[in-house]
């Protein structure tokens, strides 16, 4: 048998039927659903008189639209259109009998944080959701990717997707990370290297010592942004770190099934000599704390750098960089550490887990944020929030001057009231710095949680290593 990558193995285990041209029907083990990309899909089912084929494998949670302020269980706190979307999810979850975590449930949170937390996401699974950051679940050695609403409807009706296999890409991070460098810096540095289209057509396997050394939280951060590099999915082979995280979760297998699962999971690695169509290697020790300067996640530079000139680029990127620099209100040659910010957002499916909050709290402990700074922490789930309160992190945030919010997507995509006003500038632990992403004409600099905390203290983009 020819050597296989982990992607090959998971793919092969899920092919229901393959046509001569490679078009395959792929079985889906877990389907996560949220309120923004699902109403039309459920409506489509209803119109066609179809049902959800596997309600037990379908998990719904409202996250994109929900307010993160207290009292949100009262629908009056939502705008009319948000209320309609959340109410539609509520109705659809009940009508079709799928698992559901409403805002009144402490387990509610961002769908990509809830799935792993509850043990829905397991190694070797296929996981999809009508959200591009589904790649997050790849951290468990699962094949996980975002789909559109038509595909949501397709999965609801058939528990399968029509797919063609992607190519294999290996991203290896060798050696050790330096102090102050995190999973967020790894994933941004990779996109800086490959560009936002560098992964198009591929499924990425992240490997190497620096990846192995990461916790599950860190691995989720890395895989989360695979989509920002254009890849269909990003994944990391499971190991003892993975099994330790999964064991004992509410929906993880127990007893004899745990042992059976573990036996299979331990076969999920890339065989010696397996073929990769593309390989990118970065040295862990070369990666520095990074920030984005522009309006594409590929616009990445070490915090010690300066704003580039459009002329530094080639082809279509020259005009794109000119547009970005103007939109961001920056000057070529300006030191990144001279960029003043007025808002800090810590949260999202990229960096809304307990470890992220610990890293930020570590920098903030006993300090106050700059006067006039608007800063908020939005935990990724109700359970992350509860744990942070138990560990005393929420007290550190509040003492420093941060708002301590309820769980949701919040200012990562600013569909709820948490938004930037025109011209405001945010150091954000989220995943996209697109024009208007955090609010109309808002400006976003993507950073790690420690860097976001450091910026809140100084009022400028700041090298976290100076605060350690």
């Amino acid at each position: 048998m020819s050597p296989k990558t982990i992607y090959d193995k998971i793919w092969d285990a899920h092919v229901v039927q393959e046509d001569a041209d490679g078009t395959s029907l792929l079985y889906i083990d877990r389907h996560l659903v949220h309120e923004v990309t699902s109403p039309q899909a459920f409506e489509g089912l209803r119109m066609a008189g179809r049902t959800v084929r596997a309600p037990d494998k379908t998990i719904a949670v409202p996250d994109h639209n929900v307010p993160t302020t207290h009292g949100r269980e009262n629908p009056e706190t939502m705008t009319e259109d948000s209320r309609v979307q959340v109410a539609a999810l509520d109705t659809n979850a009940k009508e079709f009998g799928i698992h559901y975590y409403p805002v009144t449930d402490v387990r509610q949170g961002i769908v990509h944080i809830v799935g792993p937390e509850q043990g829905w996401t397991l190694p070797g699974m296929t996981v999809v959701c009508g959200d591009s950051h589904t790649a997050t679940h790849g951290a468990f050695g699962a094949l996980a990717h975002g789909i559109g609403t038509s595909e949501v409807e397709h999965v609801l009706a058939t528990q399968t997707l029509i797919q063609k296999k992607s190519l294999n890409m290996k991203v290896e991070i060798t050696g050790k990370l330096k102090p102050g460098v995190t999973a967020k810096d790894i994933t941004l540095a990779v996109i800086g290297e490959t560009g936002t289209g560098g992964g198009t057509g591929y499924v990425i396997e992240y490997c190497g010592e620096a990846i192995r050394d990461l916790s599950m939280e860190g691995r989720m951060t890395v895989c989360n942004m695979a989509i920002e590099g254009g890849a269909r999915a990003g994944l990391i082979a499971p190991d003892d770190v993975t099994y330790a995280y999964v064991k004992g979760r509410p929906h993880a297998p127990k007893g004899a099934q745990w042992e059976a699962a573990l036996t299979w999971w331990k076969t999920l690695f890339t065989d010696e000599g397996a073929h990769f169509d593309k390989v990118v290697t970065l040295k862990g020790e070369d990666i520095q704390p990074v920030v984005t300067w522009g309006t594409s996640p590929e616009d990445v530079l070490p915090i010690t750098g300066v704003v580039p000139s459009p002329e530094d680029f080639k082809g279509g990127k020259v005009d794109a960089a000119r547009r970005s620099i103007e939109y961001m209100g920056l000057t070529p040659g300006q030191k990144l550490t001279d960029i003043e910010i007025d808002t800090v957002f810590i949260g999202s499916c990229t960096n809304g887990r307990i470890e992220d909050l610990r890293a930020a709290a570590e920098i903030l402990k006993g300090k106050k944020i700059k006067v006039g700074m608007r800063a908020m922490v939005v935990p990724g789930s109700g359970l992350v929030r509860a744990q942070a309160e138990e560990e005393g992190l929420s007290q550190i945030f509040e003492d420093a001057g941060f708002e301590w919010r309820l769980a949701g997507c919040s200012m990562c995509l600013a569909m709820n009231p948490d938004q930037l006003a025109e011209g405001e500038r945010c150091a954000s632990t989220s995943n996209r710095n697109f024009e208007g992403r955090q609010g109309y004409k808002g400006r976003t600099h993507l950073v790690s949680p420690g860097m976001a905390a450091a910026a809140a203290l100084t009022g400028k983009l700041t090298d976290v290593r100076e605060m350690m």
Partner: protein
Amino acid sequence: MDKFETITGVAAPMPLVNIDTDMIIPKVFLKSIQRTGFGVNLFDEMRYTRDGDEIADFVLNKPQYRETEILVAGDNFGCGSSREHAPWAIKDFGIKCVISTSFADIFFNNCFKNGILPIVLPQEQVDVLMKDAEKGQNARMTIDLEAQTVTTSDGEAISFEVDAFKKHCLLNGLDDIGLSLEKVAAIDTYEEKSAQARPWV
């Protein structure tokens, strides 16, 4: 889904690279639970001022491009969010074909589910089509999916590749779900086998 017929129509040039789905349809318009009505907000923040006035130099606001049916775009079109509202908005505006050097994966798939043809061509050929699109409404391109050709206003025909299954579905307006449900016996068999092999799933 409507069948994809041969189009002869106005092509608009959008050479900017990395046009993301937040640009195509900003999130404030994602709160609808319908699939229609998004066309008026296509490229909203590039197309209108905050007060809702048209920005005159945005391509689709120019008189010669108001009836655009084909978009010729910069590299990595449709990157970002999985929102199908992006192709819904494109379709609702009246655009049936987008041509670029590359597309983001999810957006690319979403197009086919909505009767939109995304065409990938090498840079030199996209450059030719971009120049042609820049001529305005007198330069009407023809997209023939059956023959897999784009023909410029000067009569230059450029061939493109398209996945055979996706082409078949577009040409015949086929519903994916209906097709997959015809394979329900295979899905049943797979589920029985995997319940044995991986009972914890």
